[in-house]
């Protein structure tokens, strides 16, 4: 170990960083630089998508239309979803994968560095196309991120731009996934068998396969929209012998695995953080891996639970109801394992642990409403209401987004070499956690009381909870401004971080110096380095 450190220190001055701002960031093939690019991009998109959400909550603050024309409102909900899913959450996970997978498996870089650069630099172009739709004749896409025909075919000039943007995002995701799979399969340090990999690496491996499986399906679906609109085909047009419901089947065959693409890496992150701050190895490591794989498998056979009201045959409704309920089993296993990891641990509550604990509770609430939504007859009442909005925001915001926040607070000292302002980080956490519940919990009530989603104005009996929800929304949005401030401070300076950073931290990335050198593990480490210090997966099996 000492040797590696010395070598890294000696190389600090000539680490072959490209010179100049553009030379460094535009042409970089370094996994850490590309990881940073992804994370910065994701943060920008998070605030852009968030500002759209603020506009939506401002309009919904009270009944009556105050600010937004209904068409613009629909554009904002559509763009909010597309930006948050494809611009904020997915690139954040790819950024984390870039930074961490090579360091965690003892690889010098990603296996395909030039493709890595390409897959990132596609994204700014994709989102330029998507955002350009706000300024074209007919306005931006307003048919919802689900793009159901025939409605979406009423979009103006924005339609082809949106479709090409989605093609580009899909290409970027597929390349990113290929890179992750090739890296994990080929560049692991000697002795790191699959069942010794950190859980974050495992969940990303499975996620990458999901992405490769379903992004082409989405590309196919939107291409059919394109040909229906411009080339006279009738895939989704009943008058021409097509079927508008077929789009929904194809879309959700992509869409449901997509949901897990946005949560499996979060599971991986939480599985890293909880053992560290419990000072105890993850309970049931093997079960966690198998549960993740089961969730991924089930994600392919449950898609039509998004479509219980389209009028499917009884047999289909029964099948999709039962298959969806099955997901509760592996998800339950994961939650029980995380809880049991804390049992008989020695817990401390640094910021990453706070986010992980909030994840456990609040993601579970999203899981409960998910179980309720699986019950087809009850879903007739929930479908397309604010109950669904509350459900998926619980799994995506205090689920995926909180895990990403936790990950940044966990690994930031390793990336920058500095500790961040713990007090400010705790403020960020507590404000976010309180406001996210004020924002989304009342939406359950609104949905049950009968408020449909995607409406710019509502009947007066929905006024009270909407006002509460909007106040929560503004509070949550403002609290997030602390995040870039805190990161900026941490990049600029701060107390020197130790190599291990957290007392209970365990894994190859913590054996590297802080900040991690530009090139790390240029020689494959021996897993023997893990045997000192904190307990590990290695002791298992």
């Amino acid at each position, binding site marked *: 170990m000492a040797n590696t450190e010395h070598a890294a220190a000696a190389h600090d001055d000539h680490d072959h960083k490209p010179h100049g701002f553009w030379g460094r960031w535009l042409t970089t093939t370094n996994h850490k630089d590309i990881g940073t690019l992804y994370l910065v991009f994701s943060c920008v998109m998070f605030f852009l998508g968030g500002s759209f959400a603020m506009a939506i909550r401002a309009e919904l603050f009270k009944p*009556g239309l105050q600010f937004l024309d209904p068409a613009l409102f629909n554009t904002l909900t559509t763009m909010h979803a597309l930006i948050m899913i494809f611009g904020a959450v997915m690139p954040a996970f790819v950024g984390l994968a870039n930074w961490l997978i090579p360091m965690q498996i003892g690889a010098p870089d990603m296996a395909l560095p030039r493709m890595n650069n390409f897959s990132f630099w596609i994204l700014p172009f994709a989102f330029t196309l998507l955002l350009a739709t706000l300024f074209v004749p007919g306005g931006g896409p307003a048919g919802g991120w689900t793009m*159901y025909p025939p409605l979406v075919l*009423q979009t103006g000039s924005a339609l082809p731009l949106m479709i090409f943007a989605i093609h580009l995002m899909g290409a970027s995701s597929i390349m990113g996934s290929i890179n992750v799979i090739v890296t994990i399969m080929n560049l692991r340090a000697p002795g790191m068998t699959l069942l010794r990999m950190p859980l974050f690496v495992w969940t990303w491996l499975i996620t990458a396969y999901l992405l490769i499986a379903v992004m082409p399906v989405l590309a196919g679906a939107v291409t059919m929209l394109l040909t229906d609109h411009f080339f006279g085909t009738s895939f989704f047009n009943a008058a021409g012998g097509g079927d508008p419901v077929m789009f929904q089947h194809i879309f959700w065959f992509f869409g449901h695995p997509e949901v897990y693409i946005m949560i499996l890496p979060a599971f991986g992150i939480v599985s890293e953080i909880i053992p560290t701050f419990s000072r105890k190895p993850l309970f049931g490591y093997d079960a966690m891996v198998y549960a993740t794989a089961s969730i991924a498998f089930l994600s392919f056979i449950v898609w039509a639970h998004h479509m219980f009201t389209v*009028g499917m045959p009884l047999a289909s409704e029964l099948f999709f109801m039962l298959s969806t309920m099955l997901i509760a089993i592996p998800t339950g296993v994961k939650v029980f394992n995380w809880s049991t990891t804390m049992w008989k641990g020695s817990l401390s509550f640094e910021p990453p642990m706070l986010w992980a604990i909030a994840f456990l509770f609040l993601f579970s609430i999203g899981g409960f409403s998910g179980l309720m939504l699986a019950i087809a007859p009850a879903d007739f009442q929930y479908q397309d209401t604010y109950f669904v909005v509350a459900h998926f925001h619980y799994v995506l915001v205090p689920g995926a987004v909180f895990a990403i926040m936790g990950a940044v607070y966990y690994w930031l000292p390793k990336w920058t070499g500095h500790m961040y302002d713990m007090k400010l980080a705790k403020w960020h956490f507590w404000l976010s956690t309180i406001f996210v519940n004020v924002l989304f919990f009342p939406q359950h009530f609104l949905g049950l009381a009968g408020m449909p989603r995607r409406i710019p104005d509502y009947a007066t009996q929905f006024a009270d909870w909407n006002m509460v929800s909007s106040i929560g929304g503004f509070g949550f949005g403002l609290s997030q401004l602390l995040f870039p401030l805190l990161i900026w401070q941490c990049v600029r300076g701060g107390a020197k971080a130790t190599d291990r950073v957290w007392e209970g931290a365990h894994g190859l990335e913590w054996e590297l110096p802080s900040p991690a050198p530009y090139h790390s593990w240029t020689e494959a480490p021996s897993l023997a380095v893990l045997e000192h210090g904190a307990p590990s997966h290695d002791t298992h099996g």
Partner: protein
Amino acid sequence: MMTKTSRISIAALAAAGSMAAPAAQAAWTLNMTPGISAMSRAIYSLHMLMFWWCVGIAVVVFGFMIFSLVRFRKSTGAVADTKMLHNTRVEIVWTLVPVLILISMAVPAARVLVQTEDLAGAKLTIRVTGYQWKWGYEYLDSGVSVLSTLDRDSNHARELGSGIDPNTVPNYLLSVDHPLVVPAGVKVRLLITSQDVIHSWWVPALAIKKDAIPGFINEAWFDIDADKIGTYRGQCAELCGRDHGFMPIVLEVKSKQDFEQWLKSQQETAKQAAPAAG
């Protein structure tokens, strides 16, 4: 046990329930309406069954987590048991117990689901057609048809910057010029379709939400309790364009006799109007 707990919650939410009260729902509503038919009540009980299961599981799981968070703190001197890696017996239990719970949920859910598809014995058929942005209703055997659009007052008040306070408009956004009139105590079949994009016909009091899809016809049925005469409101539930939020559904439930009378008067009007129009 379930019915007792559900009843408590009904009591708590009595003010909110739009059960027989035709007036607008009260503010701060927390829960779903039990509705006005045996089917809507069955769905409501399923919802409450699921809700209480979730509450029960949450109490156990969150309780376990909270206990750990309090009991095993480093600051109070807790030492980690680093040998605790897995436990096959416990893991089998927490895989099998959820399976049993899920089965206990799936059985009643499947039973209700089968009933929702049982259209046998419907005495009256109404075709529901979604348009951007209104609903059309046709009573198939009597040739009566109704076009139902957002009422004038709501339509003025909802304009951007109208200056009209929505609170002054009765049933803001939930009232129409011509409601859908239906009889209580009769099994009614709906044939639901659309002329343009996909809409979704939703009346919470009936627990019916069914998509209206161009080129396809979906079926649904309801049988309202004979004593639930009154007005019930719903909305389009599938995003259908600019005015998706402004195509409400109003259901006027009449007694069987009143309904027959209404239908007859509509037929007369239609007959008188027909030659004039021709």
